[in-house]
């Protein structure tokens, strides 16, 4: 079964990690969604110029931050692109960028909807 677009359990973990502060979590979500397009742009720029290191860094950050916010499919794509960049296979990275961009759009919608509905920690704070 493919990974879901959004794993809400990760958001609950994140809420607890930041001390059950929903306003702060909302700020973090805003930052993640605001940074996403820039990261994808860095990927494309790195691919255009053949800068494997820049591609790897962007893929790594996309993987890491997406996992933090429960964007599991996007995190998996980031992991695949990072691994491909590690071996110098920029073509393999390029073949996944458009999928990553589409996935990021889906994550944006789901994340905003989930945040809008409220995320409740295991202690009951939301």
């Amino acid at each position: 079964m493919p990974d879901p677009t959004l794993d809400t359990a990760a958001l609950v973990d994140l809420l607890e990690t930041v001390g059950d502060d929903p306003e702060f979590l909302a700020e973090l979500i805003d930052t993640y969604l605001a940074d996403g397009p820039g990261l994808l742009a860095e990927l494309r720029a790195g691919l255009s110029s053949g800068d494997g290191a820049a591609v790897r860094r962007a893929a790594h950050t996309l993987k890491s931050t997406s996992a933090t916010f429960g964007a599991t499919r996007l995190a998996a794509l980031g992991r695949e692109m990072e691994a491909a960049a590690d071996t110098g296979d920029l073509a393999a990275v390029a073949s996944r960028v458009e999928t990553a961009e589409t996935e990021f759009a889906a994550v944006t919608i789901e994340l905003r909807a989930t945040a809008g509905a409220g995320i409740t920690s295991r202690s009951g704070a939301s």
Partner: protein
Amino acid sequence: MSDARGRILVVDDTALNRAILGRALRGQGHEVVEAADGRAALAILSEAADGRSIDVVLLDIEMPEMDGYETLHRIKADERLHDLPVIVISAVDALESIVRCIEMGAADYLPKPFNAAILHARVSTSLDAKRLRDLELEYLEQVDRLTAAASAVEEGAFEPATLEGVSSREDALGQLARTFQRMADEVRAREDRLRAEVRELRIEIDTVRQARKVSEITETDFFRDLRERAPHLRRIVDDPSVDPR
């Protein structure tokens, strides 16, 4: 595991990660300092201007310019920072990176995405380890001072003030320092008495020598004869018309 509080340096080029870790650590009662790259981290660690040192470093591995490996290497190569606990931040699937960092001297690793309970456990353990190491280093430094004091006593250059701090300890080392100070004081007092006795002895010897010199002169026939003739000689001096015979 204690609930010790500390000053934690978070090194990560991703602002989101710094924000998350910073909030989590402050929520757990720690003071947080942030650095966006390895160079900034090393600058913060070297700086002692405010006298507040860092207790634990949380270090991301993947960073541009100077990555986590290089930063960790430089921390461990610096004698002043060698014992500082470094917890590397890493994705769970980066086993090789984690092993490499631990072989380079990292104390532990923190998996991403972050979990509050694991963060608390890893940081607390490192804080406890640092506190123990600080106590050990302080103990060794005070043993060195006691050893240096012993050499100073032999050279006659011991100053009791050098053992201040050591002698106020309540453990066996403090007791040893107090005993040492007492013995050093007794030795000094004995030496002072000895010097005073030698001084008195010298005075006596000088007095006896002088007396002997005087008697060498006054106990001769010549001096006795001179003493007998002294009144007549005085009369001659006073009245040159007196017959000198």
